[in-house]
């Protein structure tokens, strides 16, 4: 298995405060990496470095490097829009646009230069099926996306992300605001998506991390404490701190 993403000694500052400190992670292609750790430990900050979403926050600074397929995403002249096309993102709070279900997905296609109506329709359907949402919305494609349930909205956001066929999908606690049934649907979806995409998911739910991920990274106060395959992290963690966290003794 080759490394799709290599995070090299990454440090990220908000002003003078480092929220991510000298982190090194390798993510294998077509695997699911779960990022766990107590609130405020830098999980969101770290994954937002991978699609350079933090660029839009003023007064921030990045040290170190991130490589995707061996190429630095911080290289001069690297096109950030291209990067974000390759690295999709699903946010903690579902954020469909105030447009129709169809337009929500068509938007990403259109801005990426797909103009043919037939192509757009085909890909909208395909990505809705890919996000296990098609059967529920096929009769209401022209209705506002804001009328969908929370779980449907989040799957719509996943559909929107996979519609532009990224290589990597970042998910920041995608199920934290959802009910158990919707959560289960999203978890099943992640299992399916793994075949085509490399997935990095932040979660505060230990069982979820254990169920869906191949690898788990435990962070604490900006530092990467331990990373290993998920089974090892949950059954025989290398450090007492990790064990305390995954067994719920702190966090």
């Amino acid at each position, binding site marked *: 298995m080759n490394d799709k993403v290599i995070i090299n000694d990454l440090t990220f500052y908000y002003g003078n405060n480092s929220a991510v400190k000298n982190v090194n992670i390798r993510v294998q292609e077509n695997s699911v990496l779960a990022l766990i750790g107590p609130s405020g430990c830098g999980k969101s900050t770290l994954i937002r470095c991978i699609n350079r*979403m933090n660029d839009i926050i003023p007064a921030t600074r990045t040290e170190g490097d991130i490589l995707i397929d061996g190429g630095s995403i911080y290289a001069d002249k690297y096109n950030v*829009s291209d990067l*974000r096309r390759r690295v999709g993102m699903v946010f903690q709070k579902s954020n469909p*646009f105030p447009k129709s279900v169809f337009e929500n997905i068509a938007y990403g296609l259109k801005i990426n230069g797909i103009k043919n109506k037939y192509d757009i329709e085909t890909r909208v359907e395909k990505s809705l099926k890919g996000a296990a949402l098609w059967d529920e919305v096929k009769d209401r494609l022209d209705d506002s996306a804001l009328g969908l349930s929370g779980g449907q909205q989040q799957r719509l956001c996943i559909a929107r992300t996979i519609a532009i066929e990224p290589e990597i999908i970042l998910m920041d606690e995608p199920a934290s605001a959802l009910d158990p049934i919707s959560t289960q649907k999203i978890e099943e979806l992640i299992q399916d998506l793994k075949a085509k995409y490399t997935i990095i998911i932040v979660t505060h739910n230990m069982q979820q991390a254990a169920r869906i991920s191949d690898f788990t990274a435990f962070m604490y106060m900006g530092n990467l404490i331990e990373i290993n395959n998920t089974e090892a992290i949950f059954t025989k963690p290398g450090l007492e701190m990790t064990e305390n966290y995954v067994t719920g003794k702190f966090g």
Partner: protein
Amino acid sequence: MLGYIVKTGFSALSWEFLTTFPKDSMTKGGIFPAIIGTLYLIIGSSIVSIPVGIITAIYLTEYASNEKIVRLIRLGVSNLAGIPSVVFGLFGLSLFVIFLKFGTSILAGSLTLGVLNLPVIIRSTEEALMTVPKTFREASLSLGATRWQTIYRIVLPGALPGILTGVMLSLGRAAGETAPIMFTAAAFFTPDLPTSIFHEVMALPYHIYVMATAGTKILETRPLQYGTAIILITLVLILNMTGLILRYRFRKKLKGI
């Protein structure tokens, strides 16, 4: 007050009043040229202030990364907002009428009113832009959209109702102002409609002012003055209502109802 205006002015209202020129040194006849003049000034000032105001606001909220420049512009804008309108009139007189040699004209008046409107449009546009949630911007950017695509296709449509409301309110205000056009655009009386932007025009607020202060028969023309006031108020109301209706429409559309 409104009741008094309507009561006094109502007798003057007629189709003829709206569509004919004043007669007999403005003691009789209609206010047609003043209505047209005010409409020209509204349109002219929109052409000046809407694009500049909206572009400035977009720059301030979406693009500017230099805190100092942003603060400087914001300071300038809020100072501009605090200046009495008569000072705008004098400013317009010295810059547009005299220095740029536009003369007392639609052009000079539109530019003056445009500058007067700028702070309101910039501020309301900024506010409207800021009501568009950050999460929409992030979603758009995360799909590979550029900053401009995000602004053009996500942020502006979301902010449009607020922007339009601000624009309409500012135009309504501009329509009613006398001081800024007094030295820059308004004519006591013109026998013809203007045919070029370098012509001076009659305008409703100035017409009222003239009839009420400078006529030979101030008392006898009271109904005419108040009749003109009714028309002016109606015009301002129409602009304001349009703003509110647009906002309501777009709100509904945004919610997808």
